[in-house]
């Protein structure tokens, strides 16, 4: 019962947040910002706002487009067609990741995910004791040869021309074949009716909101953001600039601050793809964890117990624990 109430409150809060169109910091959205800007509760015609985009261009946009929860709505049919002449790619610089987990928070907030669903997960990888452990963020790889799409009996999950793999949960029958098909455990099932979504949202596969019981969800590369010409939420949220995102056709990726040629980055830093041998051809590349910006233990600082427990089987963590006991 208690649980239920909490989640209802939470969804109300989320709803408020949406209604007010603020999402930068949830506290500010509800308490602070309104005091500072009381006019915003006034209803009115869509306001036009001038915005200077990252590349220095001034555009005039509808106010609503600035709302983090996009109202730039793309319907089910439309979202099957990719953004023309694009092929999206992500590069993850493993040398910089310190398990700050900001990508996870931004994703969960942006997609109104329940707290136990993480579309991007941060693994601590270490195969053997001799190898060095490193942090490994894993979104959906939006594979170019995606087994999840191959096995779907109804075409509920599909790959678009811009490389993005999406799920249409209106069509999905919940057979979970795609979950066993994906070798990267990137897909997650709504085992029960989710309560975190604002029910007034109209469903779009590009945002995957609102989620539906008995269907599958996964990272969508923030296709809604991309349509607006913005970077995915995790990319802009990462304080370390670990995640680069861009268009392969333009051969450029950016982490919001640095902009580099994709091909040169991969060549110079020996980029690779995880589990190349499985043949799914991921669209996510990794730069090996060399020249680390942080020692790996930095990622353990300030972790809550729940998250800490996840890594208990990694040899490195096991050793740490044993040493502690020894001392």
């Amino acid at each position, binding site marked *: 019962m208690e649980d239920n109430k909490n989640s209802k409150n939470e969804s109300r809060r989320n709803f408020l947040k949406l209604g007010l169109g603020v999402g930068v910091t949830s506290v500010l959205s509800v*308490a602070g910002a309104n005091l500072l800007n009381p006019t*915003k509760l006034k209803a009115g015609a869509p306001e036009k706002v001038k915005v200077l985009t990252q590349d220095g261009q001034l555009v005039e946009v509808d106010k609503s487009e600035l709302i983090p929860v996009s109202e730039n709505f793309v319907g089910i049919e439309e979202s099957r067609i990719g953004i023309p002449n694009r092929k999206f790619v992500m590069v993850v610089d493993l040398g910089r990741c310190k398990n700050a987990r900001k990508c996870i928070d931004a994703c969960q907030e942006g997609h109104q995910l329940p707290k136990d669903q993480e579309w991007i997960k941060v693994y601590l990888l270490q195969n053997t004791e001799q190898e060095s452990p490193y942090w490994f963020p894993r979104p959906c790889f939006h594979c170019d040869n995606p087994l999840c799409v191959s096995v779907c009996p109804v075409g509920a999950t599909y790959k678009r021309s811009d490389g993005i793999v999406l799920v249409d949960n209106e069509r999905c029958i919940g057979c979970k074949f795609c979950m066993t098909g994906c070798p990267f455990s990137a897909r997650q099932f709504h085992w029960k009716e989710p309560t975190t979504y604002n029910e007034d949202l109209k469903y779009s596969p590009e945002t995957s909101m609102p989620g539906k019981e008995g269907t599958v969800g996964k990272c969508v590369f923030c296709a809604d953001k991309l349509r607006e010409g913005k970077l995915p939420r995790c990319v802009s949220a990462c304080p370390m600039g670990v995640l680069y995102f861009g268009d392969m056709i333009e051969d450029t990726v950016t982490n919001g601050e640095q902009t580099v040629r994709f091909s040169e980055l991969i060549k110079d830093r020996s980029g690779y793809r995880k589990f190349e041998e499985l043949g799914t051809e991921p669209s996510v590349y990794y730069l090996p964890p060399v020249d680390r910006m942080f020692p790996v233990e930095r990622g353990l600082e300030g972790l809550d117990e729940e998250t800490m427990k996840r890594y208990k089987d990694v040899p490195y963590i096991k050793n740490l624990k044993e040493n502690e006991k020894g001392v």
Partner: protein
Amino acid sequence: MEVKNIYKILILLLSFSLRISNAYSQEDVEVTEETTYEPILKFSGLKNTEGNRILKCTILTRLEGKWTPIENAELTFSVSGDSILELGTQKSDNMGIAVLEINKSINIPSDENGATTYTVEYKGVENSEPNSEELTIVDVNLEMSLEEIDSVKTIIIKASKKGAEGEIVPVEDHDVNIYVKRLYSILKVGQAYLEEGTGEGSLEYKLIPGDSLGNIVIIARIDEHEEFGNVEVRQTINWGTPVSYATNDIKREIWTNEAPLWMTITVIIFVLGVWYHLILVFIRMWKIKKLEKNTIN
């Protein structure tokens, strides 16, 4: 000074509406804490390729130890000099950014060095302190021409400013960054050094991918110069290499919506084969029924 008067009225009206909606907001949202915020303003200017000046101000405040943008804050831009000229007011967006574009046709007063001082002002509300910020910019004229010199694609840059007597003085000994426009950002491809004396610089263009037609937007830009602010020119040209990305060479795309032909044929043969025999059997069963009727008759 009519503009100014209208402006005052507007502010009056606005503050009135502020009060009304204040009542609104208190009904809708419970406010537990009373704090006074001290916002800061980040002010920058850009002269874009059309020659328009764009003033951008970001308003942030410290909230729970984090810099948090303030949305919908009213920011008033003006030019200070002998007399104060109000340029306009903009509201900040959800990133706390307010932007004002000044058309190049508007004549903005400047001092004998060609410098203009802009001011941005935030008047504050009940629980937020007011603040203001100044920015002084010398107007620079940046020109770019794209030429093929001896079949070498070259970007030529020229920069100048107005002298004290209105003559044109070249901007010298300075780097101009060259970028190409990308989807989410701009990609730096090099620098052009402005030679002393001429104020001219050039950069050889290296091949980089454009869009599907090979078009490319080249941007020359003086970045965050303490004197000039940001100045840029951009130009579209067909210098990019058109890339067509094909998903490597996967010959059997089992993930597409259409199944491979052999698979379709196999399934059809299977289904038809079974149904053919089933129908034969059904016909026999029907015959069994009919046979009997014949014998009875």
